């Protein structure tokens, strides 16, 4: 079932085009949004989360149009949003912060609100940290608290902007497990730089570049983009090909076959790098 439909979505900041006629349909499950810096991922998520009005095109969330004020409020009742910089009040306790956001989400009855706060704290495994101030939580816990506030009110659409940035491997695994559970019955749109996140979590992946959607499909389809273009060799390739030395000491080359190289199984990252060309390769190498 389609939850979100975007048609011809456009947004400009001065002379810079952030979104250029984006068409997209998203349904239940986890959809990953990949792209280099400045690809338009955050702008797209902000438009969907009603934090930003687009300049052109249409958005429909469950058939509702956020451009209409009354329908926008209804859309907000159905979404949970974790921005890139959530700015959670450092002097609030985890419980007080969720209690506050629950009020913003129109849960005005005290008993119902407290039950909801307990539910989301339990869902993100922070029940025992309810009385800890936000500034004393670790980065991973803070990010889970950010996720908890997005889950208040049991939204049908959850929008997460780079939630795994800066997390250590253990916290990242925990976060992935949480997002994976969410995707069982909700629509989750997850922006990330990490192709590993996409491979581990997403049923669908959307790649953006220069404000446009350049790929839509499954993670395997993205890897297929690099089929027949990934090579392993014992010596570095000649010319300007993109390559790097892997953990086994072999040179992994993308593009034309270097002399003496053997074909290798492509990964999601290979597909992504080949799809975006120089922009992504430069960013990946950096």
């Amino acid at each position, binding site marked *: 079932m389609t939850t979100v439909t975007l048609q011809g979505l456009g947004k400009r900041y001065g002379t810079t085009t952030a979104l250029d006629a984006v068409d997209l349909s998203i349904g239940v499950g986890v959809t990953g949004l990949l792209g280099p810096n400045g690809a338009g991922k955050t702008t797209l998520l902000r438009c969907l*989360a009603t934090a930003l009005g687009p300049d052109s095109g249409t958005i429909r969330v469950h058939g509702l149009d956020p451009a209409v004020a009354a329908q926008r409020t209804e859309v*907000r009742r159905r979404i949970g949003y974790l921005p890139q910089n959530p700015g959670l009040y450092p002097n609030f*306790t985890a419980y007080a912060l969720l209690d506050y956001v629950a009020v913003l989400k*129109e849960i005005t009855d005290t008993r119902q609100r*407290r039950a909801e706060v307990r539910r989301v704290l339990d869902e993100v495994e922070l029940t025992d940290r309810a009385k800890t101030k936000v500034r004393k939580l670790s980065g991973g816990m803070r990010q889970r608290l950010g996720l908890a506030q997005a889950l208040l009110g049991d939204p049908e659409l959850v929008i997460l902007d780079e939630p795994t940035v800066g997390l250590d491997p253990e916290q990242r695994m925990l976060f992935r497990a949480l997002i994976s559970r969410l995707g069982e019955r909700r629509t989750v749109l997850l922006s990330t730089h990490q192709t590993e996140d996409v491979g581990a979590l997403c049923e669908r992946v959307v790649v953006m570049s220069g404000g446009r959607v350049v790929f839509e499909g499954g993670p395997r389809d993205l890897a297929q983009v690099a089929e027949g273009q990934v090579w392993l060799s014992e010596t570095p390739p000649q010319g300007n090909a993109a390559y790097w030395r892997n953990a086994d000491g072999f040179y992994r080359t993308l593009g034309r076959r270097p002399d003496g190289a053997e074909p290798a199984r492509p990964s999601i990252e290979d597909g992504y790098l080949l799809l975006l060309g120089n922009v992504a390769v430069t960013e990946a190498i950096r």
Partner: protein
Amino acid sequence: MTTDWHIDPGLIEQYENGTLVPSRVMAVEAHMLSCAACRALIPAEDAWLDDSWSAVYDELHAPRVGPVARLLTRAGLPGHRLRLLTATPALRWSWVLATSAVLTLAVAAAWFGREGSQAIGQAFLALAPILPVIAVSGAYGPPADPMHEITGTTPAAGPGLVLWRAVSVIGVAVVMAGVAAVLLPGPGWYAAAWLLPALLLSTGTLALATSLTLPVAAVVLGALWLTGVLVVARTAEGLFVSSVFGPTAQLAYLLAAAVFAAVLITRRRRFDLGESR
């Protein structure tokens, strides 16, 4: 730990009925702690237990209600509305205490430096209307509110929330400046002369914030007011108070505030992040 001995069914029945003497209740409960089989004979009221634990958890973790909040609740402000207002950046204790300190110093300077008290009184009149404007600039949105992006995408976001917060901070600022005005040496009407300019600047800031950000709107209007006041002070020396705070000026402030209020009502949707600007 397991045991071969189990509680007699008659005892269990008395325990369930609540007819067992306390010393035997303690004995039965001590045994049940280590015997799952006997524990299973007592039907547990899971819903009641869950409710009780939830109530205890909330009691321990829910934010404490302070004396001011209790007073406002008694005055009829609903608890959820209070939660919204207490998160307003300009209502944090640090802001309130800093403002109170500045006002206390102004009053003290006026009383202890009696010779310059008239000038201090006039300076107070000129500056007091700015206080609510500064408060409004910290009521909503960036940079005062680091959570503005989350706040702005909830169903409560929009003009209603902005106005609730603005009214609450203006109220607090006016009360603080009002107390200081009453304590200042000088004519009694000084205590009220700054109120209409404050209303004008506050509504003006909010109206202007439908096109600019709140802090920029506050700076623009604050600067305009101070420039105007300084120009009058330079050109109409001796007539400063009557020119800026006299009846004609007060009427003009009231009319201008009404115009700003009309602009604010017409353009209030602009406070919604989701509106295209």
